[in-house]
């Protein structure tokens, strides 16, 4: 029997086996290469076609268009949130008429394209000009911006009502019963117990709805509102410079990604008590 006299010195780990060159790696390199080529191509078109005069002329109008888009989206989202509350309550109501009316409202606005609704309001209400003038509402519907605000508010109210209803119904029944057992009146139970829990569920769909509205608001350019898309179209029709669309795309992407990140942070922050 032999006894080892000395310890074996520590050895370096064996070298990692070489990664095989797989098919997916090939496709990955090709796809990344395509993106890289596109990025470089866009960079060189922007640099090559750079025109300080164009930039100074259309830069401010792009910014004002951005402002119009943000104002339109934020005001319609806020007004829609107010309007969505009665619609959601009507949707959950046990009264046949209210629930049917709310359902018809939601079905109409979710089942038809936003652009068709906008045309219906902007061009269609023009046929009722005498009637609108007698009730004194013509000044409102004469302006394309107001029409867009009106349509977007009604549209987003329908979507938000469904988000709200889904969220409120997702709160378990025990919460209602618990509030009732504590002797809380119905409305206090709703605002202090049910709604806060529902809002956490509704947070992510609300974020998606805002993103959808930002993207959907581009169609107001067709009814002569000069939002970001409208300014882009005007600049393109004057210069026939394809770069304009690239700038608009960058601005829209920036808006949406910024909002998505803010929303992700907000969600992480608001649900930190639910993390285990």
């Amino acid at each position: 029997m032999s006894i080892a006299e000395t310890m074996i010195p520590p050895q370096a780990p064996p070298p990692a086996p070489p990664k095989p060159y797989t098919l997916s790696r090939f496709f990955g390199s090709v796809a990344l290469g395509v993106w890289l080529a596109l990025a470089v191509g866009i960079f060189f078109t922007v640099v090559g076609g750079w025109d300080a005069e164009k930039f100074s002329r259309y830069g401010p109008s792009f910014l004002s268009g951005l402002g119009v888009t943000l104002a339109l989206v934020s005001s319609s989202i806020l007004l829609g949130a107010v309007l969505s509350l009665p619609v959601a309550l009507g949707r959950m109501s046990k009264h046949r008429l209210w629930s049917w009316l709310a359902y018809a409202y939601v079905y109409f606005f979710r089942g038809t394209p936003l652009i068709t609704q906008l045309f219906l309001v902007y061009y269609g209400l023009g046929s009722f000009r005498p009637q609108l003038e007698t009730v004194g509402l013509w000044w409102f519907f004469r302006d394309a911006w107001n029409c867009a605000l009106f349509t977007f508010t009604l549209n987003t109210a329908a979507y938000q009502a469904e988000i709200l209803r889904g969220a409120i119904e997702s709160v378990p029944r025990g919460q209602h019963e618990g509030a009732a057992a504590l002797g809380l009146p119905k409305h206090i139970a709703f605002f202090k117990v049910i709604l806060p829990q529902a809002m956490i569920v509704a947070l992510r769909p609300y974020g998606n709805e805002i993103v959808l509205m930002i993207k959907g608001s581009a169609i107001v350019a067709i009814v002569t509102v000069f939002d970001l898309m409208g300014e882009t179209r005007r600049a393109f029709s004057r210069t026939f410079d394809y770069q304009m669309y690239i700038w608009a795309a960058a601005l829209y992407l920036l808006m949406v990604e910024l909002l998505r990140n803010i929303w992700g942070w907000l969600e992480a922050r608001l649900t930190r008590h639910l993390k285990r």
Partner: protein
Amino acid sequence: MSGLFAAIYSGLAWVVSIIDPFCGPVGVFRLFGSDTLLACGDTGWGDEVAYGFLVTASLAIATLPIGLTVGFFVALAKQSEERSLRLAANIYTTIFRGLPELLTLFIVYYGLQILVQQFLATIGYEGPVEINAFVAGMIALGVVFSAYCSEVLLSAFKAIPHGQYEAGDALGLHRGATMRLIILPQLIRIALPGLGNLWMALLKDTALVSVVGLPDILRQTGVAARVTKQAFEFFGLACILFLILAMISSVAFSAIERRTKRAEMGR
């Protein structure tokens, strides 16, 4: 290529003229609207609107397979072990989910026009080039649809347990066969509600293609509204037609969903 399209188109047109629900032998416009603005033929707008309905429906139906296929492969790329592939797929969805559909459409429409023009210029053809609005709409909507579709399919993929793949390996199935016979049937069942929502969104997005001149429902009713000065009636009709499309699809989807769920009935 255009000859093939023309042949398919004329064959379809004959079938459609027989079963046309608007201006066919038993169409709504022919039965109820013969003395109104919606009469079929030269006196009314019935046949134009019916044509728009057909164009909208066929654009959505033509876009669906493209979007589903591309979306499936993007979803596969997103759950690949290869980092570069995942990164490329994530860039794709970030861009096309973040851009407004209208802007995507313009970028595709004018971008294709410029590309084709430059290509033709290099081979010596100088002249006006016009891109088919239907094709541009199909590409733009397909790209947007596939970006959303990949997210839906990705979450469906995550819902399938790993044991299903291992079972496929244990049975000695090839990877493609595992995918086709084991994973896909379950994937479709899980992803169907999400895909139904995407189909509805696609149906509504087709209205945007009217902006670049495709004679769909919105364009045809818009022309009619401008000529007859009865905008409310015609845009209201457009809304009703889109609602009808939505209703038909929701009926179809609930039928498909029932069919995919028939294995679970006993439980």
